[in-house]
């Protein structure tokens, strides 16, 4: 796509004008783009920094939550152990017996079995066992004043006993914000310390001796760990890219619009130059003649007065023709089809009356017109005045752009299968190939050495083209510099279904 755009820019016929528009658009675009880029970069850096900060805080918070909870559990376990020890001391002071040991075990349900060995005679031991615990058991001992108790315990039951210590969790409460660390107990921890998970940060704090097979896991969720569309950073980068590409598109469109505008401005300048020249010349001629007539009055010779009157009349005619051309172009440009009144017209009649009307004028310019007319052409639905003006404009052009020799104009009317063709052929100076593409543009005039001496506003061919387009037809030009030009108006023939169907059906019906 980019290559196509570049190619378009290069191939453009007025590529010489481009650098101005390009730089006038590209430079502000680059400045704004650079500003946006800096903003995007800064916001990216800031968001990255914030993310790091949030992550650090989350990690620390998870760590504190886990450590505090672990120490609470440790303290609760310590309390439980010393409470059990004191309980046993009471039993022992009374009298250590099998029943007392059994009761002690039953009171502390996390103890699975106990062996009491009195100092006086260790082999006179007491043993009691409670509910059989799980396979995973540990051994603890406590020294009483007159003996030693060794007991096995069930860590899971001990943990259940001290679990209430976890009920109160460290809580962060800010205004309208409440984020709670999730604290849970895990078994057989693989490693202690901070761990980054998919959704946040976890911290594993190990527990002290009796429950060392367990650990506390603190977890804090952060929004930054997520990937894909939920990642705010990715979204901001994508939005920046979108904004940049939209800006590029806008710049391209503005550039195209400006280029078009500049072309129009140039043409308008040409119009002002052309039209003012075209208007001023006849006006000054008229003024000169009128002043001469007024000053001279009846004293002027008859012949000179006639000449002046003719000249004034000629200039007025020319002026009105020019003004009408301009008005017609504007009118047809504004509302193409409505401006025309289509009526049934015989092309032969149209051409013969046109040529006979203007024959004297053409002859006065030293030209001969020959008519070649195909009589078989049917009635057409044309705008009579518009088509007449188009043909007249072509004849006028032929007269204007012919040399001193071969002052012959051929006007041909013929038809093909699809169209009715009016051809105007001269043997004049012709048109350069470079100009051929642009002669139909408004106010464009081919560059000749004597362009300024030939009258015209550069509107004739534009008008012709607009008229033929309004009729649904096309215009063709054949031209060779020095050998003359041929303008061909192709009007579409209305397809008459009757004749074609009859012609097709004929063999079958016969």
């Amino acid at each position: 796509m980019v290559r196509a755009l570049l190619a378009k820019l290069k191939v453009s016929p007025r590529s010489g004008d481009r650098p101005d528009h390009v730089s006038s658009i590209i430079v502000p675009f680059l400045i704004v783009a650079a500003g946006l880029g800096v903003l995007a970069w800064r916001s990216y850096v800031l968001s990255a920094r914030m993310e790091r900060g949030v992550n650090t805080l989350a990690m620390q918070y998870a760590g504190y939550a886990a450590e505090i909870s672990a120490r609470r559990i440790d303290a609760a376990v310590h309390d439980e152990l010393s409470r059990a020890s004191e309980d046993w001391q009471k039993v022992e002071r009374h009298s250590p017996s099998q029943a007392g040991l059994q009761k002690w075990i039953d009171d502390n349900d996390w103890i699975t079995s106990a062996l009491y060995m009195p100092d006086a005679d260790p082999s006179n031991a007491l043993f009691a066992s409670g509910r059989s615990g799980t396979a995973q058991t540990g051994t603890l001992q406590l020294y009483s004043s007159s003996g030693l108790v060794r007991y096995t315990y069930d860590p899971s039951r001990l943990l259940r006993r001290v679990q209430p210590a976890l009920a109160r969790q460290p809580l962060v409460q800010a205004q309208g914000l409440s984020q709670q660390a999730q604290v849970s107990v895990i078994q057989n921890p693989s490693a202690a310390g901070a761990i980054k998970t998919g959704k946040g940060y976890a911290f594993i704090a190990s527990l002290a001796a009796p429950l060392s097979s367990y650990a506390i896991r603190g977890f804090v969720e952060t929004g930054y760990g997520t990937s894909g569309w939920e990642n705010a950073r990715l979204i901001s980068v994508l939005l920046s890219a979108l904004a940049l590409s939209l800006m590029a598109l806008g710049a391209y469109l503005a550039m195209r619009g400006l280029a078009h505008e500049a072309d129009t401005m140039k043409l308008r300048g040409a119009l002002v130059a052309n039209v003012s020249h075209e208007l001023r010349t006849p006006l000054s001629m008229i003024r000169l003649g009128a002043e001469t007539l007024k000053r001279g009055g009846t004293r002027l010779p008859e012949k000179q007065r006639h000449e002046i009157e003719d000249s004034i009349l000629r200039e007025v005619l020319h002026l009105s023709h020019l003004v009408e051309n301009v008005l017609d172009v504007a009118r047809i440009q504004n509302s193409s089809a409505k401006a025309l009144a289509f009526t049934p017209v015989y092309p032969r009649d149209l051409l013969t009356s046109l040529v006979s009307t203007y024959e004297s004028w053409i002859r006065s310019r030293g030209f001969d017109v020959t008519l070649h007319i195909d009589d078989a052409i049917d009635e057409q639905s044309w705008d009579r005045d518009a088509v007449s003006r188009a043909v007249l404009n072509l004849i006028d052009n032929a007269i204007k752009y012919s040399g001193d020799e071969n002052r012959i104009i051929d006007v041909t009317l013929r038809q093909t299968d699809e169209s009715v063709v009016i051809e105007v052929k001269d043997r004049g100076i012709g048109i350069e190939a470079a100009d051929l593409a642009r002669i139909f543009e408004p106010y464009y005039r081919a560059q000749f050495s004597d362009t300024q001496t030939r009258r015209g506003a550069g509107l004739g061919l534009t008008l012709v083209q607009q008229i033929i387009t309004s009729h649904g037809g096309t215009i063709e030009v054949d031209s060779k510099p020095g050998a003359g030009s041929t303008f061909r108006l192709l009007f579409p023939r209305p397809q008459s279904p009757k004749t074609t169907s009859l012609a097709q059906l004929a063999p079958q019906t016969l």
Partner: protein
Amino acid sequence: MTVRLSHFLVAALLLVTAAHADDKKLCTSSPRECEQAIRQLSSGRRYLGAMIEELNPGIAVKAVIEDGPAWRSDLRPGDRIMAVNGHSTVEGNIKDFKQILYTAKQTGVLWIIIKRSGVLRKVDVQLAPFSKAQIDKMVAQHLLVGHGIPDVTATSTAPQH
């Protein structure tokens, strides 16, 4: 004296057993489980073999098990314990002594300074594990008391002490 104390204890336990063995068993677990647990809890466990009493202030040896670790290290009833493993026990109580005993369980060695008839003496005690006979006796004791199973070896060995 110590022998007599142990005899008294055994006799008391036997009496208790005789009174309760018929109507209900004190221990709810199976005898095999209990025996395993006792052997596991006592095996390799080192003991001192001396009974301590509080003198307020201070502590002294109240009784010594014959042929126990304390007996073999020449610790005798009536010895006042002045210091253990560098910790003074002149004004200590049994709890302090037990704490020292607990911390010394890794090495199994106690350096005790005693005061016997006005003379300070240093005694090194090597804590010793229970012998097989002692453990067997514990098992027999429990089977008899907890499950009402009279053990042949236990009853036969008891009178020998």
